[in-house]
């Protein structure tokens, strides 16, 4: 079956600067594909090229099997919808509802269908109560949700989402991820760029990491996590025995007080987390909780995108 999005050997130069270098990417139907990368990695340029706002220097793009350049821009743009990264991408003097009706009609919906669908999408993103309010009076988060509602007006085979959760509160971000998941469940391929590494766990099916325009990693979130073994943890302890934690962990880990019953644990080479925790428990220390101090995804990201 043809993948909704396939990018082959894509390059983009701005003068002497190579922003994208031989990028290959494939997003299958029903898949959420997270595109990660530090600032300047080329994520937004890639999305702008996919949306037809910028020409590639070299390479090929296929959406639903159609190669860019072989069909008109009008037909090309029927194959996807986009949530741009900017905060203000709607008309500030119009209500959220009127904005959606306008864009719905640009997507080819009849007036009746555009009105109906606009109401449904506003409901979906939790803006039904603010439907008749001018967008200029919306908060940044509400404007972002409106942009998401706009992308959902027509169920396209491909959704390009650029930093959708950037200015959203945790609940808004969660809702946005749920909406993207729903779209994927309906069969859409979702390309999701983000800087929020914490959100891809349990959400993205596939991750691509770009660094200076090059693909540095491609795989599942589990595969990404597997590229590092976390060595630093925060533990919360209850009762402490006669021996202090530092004495018990001699040779296993370095431990420092992090405050309020918490300790920072750095495993020494060769030591395992299980053995270290067992040493504490055997020494009469009650370990209430243990968690990674830096998420493994973040650690993997830093390792992949850090200076080589």
């Amino acid at each position, binding site marked *: 079956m043809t993948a909704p999005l396939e990018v082959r050997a894509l390059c983009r130069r701005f003068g002497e600067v190579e922003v994208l270098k031989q990028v290959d990417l494939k997003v299958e139907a029903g898949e959420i594909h997270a595109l990660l990368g530090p600032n300047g990695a080329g994520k937004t340029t890639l999305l702008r090229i996919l949306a037809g*706002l910028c*020409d590639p220097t070299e390479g090929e793009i296929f959406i639903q099997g159609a190669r860019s350049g072989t069909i008109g821009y009008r037909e*090309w743009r029927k194959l996807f919808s986009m949530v741009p990264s900017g905060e*203000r*991408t709607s008309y500030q003097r119009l209500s959220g509802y009127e904005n959606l009706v306008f864009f719905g009609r*640009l997507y*080819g*919906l009849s007036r009746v269908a555009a009105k109906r669908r606009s109401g449904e999408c506003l409901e979906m993103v939790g803006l039904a109560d603010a439907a008749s309010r001018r967008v200029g009076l919306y908060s940044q988060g509400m404007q972002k949700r409106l942009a998401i509602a706009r992308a959902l007006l027509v169920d396209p085979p491909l959704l390009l989402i650029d930093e959708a959760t950037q200015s959203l509160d945790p609940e808004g971000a969660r809702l946005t991820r749920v909406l993207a998941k729903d779209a994927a469940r309906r069969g859409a391929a979702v390309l999701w760029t983000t800087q929020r590494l914490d959100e891809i766990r349990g959400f993205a099916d596939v991750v691509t990491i770009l660094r200076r325009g090059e693909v540095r990693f491609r795989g599942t979130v589990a595969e990404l996590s597997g590229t590092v073994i976390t060595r630093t943890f925060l533990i919360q302890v209850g009762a402490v025995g006669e021996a202090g934690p530092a004495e018990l962990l001699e040779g296993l880990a370095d431990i420092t007080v992090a405050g309020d019953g918490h300790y920072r644990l750095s495993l020494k080479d060769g030591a395992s987390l299980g053995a270290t925790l067992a040493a504490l428990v055997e020494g009469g220390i009650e370990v209430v909780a243990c968690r990674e101090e830096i998420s493994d995804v973040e650690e993997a990201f830093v390792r992949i995108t850090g200076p080589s």
Partner: protein
Amino acid sequence: MIDAHRPAVVEEIAKLGAFFRRNLLIAVSYRMAFIADWFNLVLQLVIFSLVGRLVDPARIPEIGGRAISYVEFVTVGIALMSFVQIALSRVLSAIRQEQLIGTLDFLLTTPMAPTTLQIGLVVYDLFYVPIRTGVFLALASLFFDISLNPSGLLPALVIMLAFIPFVWGLGMISSAATLTFRRGTGVVGLITAAFTILSAAYIPLEALPGWARAFASVNPFTLALTSAREVLLGGAGWAPVGRAVSVFLPLAAVSVAIGVFSFRLAMRRERRLGTLGGY
């Protein structure tokens, strides 16, 4: 969800309706600007009526064998040139505004023909400006002792309708320049002012210096003005319409063709450079 059965042309025309509604709602939301526009128009008329007291009536050319006042002469000039100014500047400022408020990028990701975008940005003005001109002329004839020939209204409308595409073509060229150079308002303002001064809008041709008269005689704006005056003030009926239309139609074809071509060229250049939507 998209109605695939509708022919592309019908779909694109329906989008123009959406643009019209959007621009109408935005215009209505700026109530003060709307009122100020009308106030400014009437104020111009008041100023020119006062200036008219200083002008020797003998220096105003007769139209259709009838002696006319300076206010009558200039009313048609104000009406037509304010129409030209709006038609020219709105195309340009519409693109610029979309760039500045950040909506141009998104508009360009929607499935829309470039021509739909170009017409869509000004479709509201294509309706509003002729209505504004008509209402202005009606108010002027009511309150400023200007005797407009009612039988000239329809021929004047035809002249304007033939003239609109020509001006719109110029507007498209200026919008292409805005896409490319970002700021073009000053240049367009200058060109509009030059065309206005050198077209007998406010000053009779006979009062212009020789070089200016030579330019004015080949300026299409002059033909629009003299034809409109002949039908509205001179009672010339349909006679000037044929001449005006026969000149404006080929000019419009050329200006629209250059406009469409230059706009597409500008879009292609922006996509190649990757600067589309930037300001």
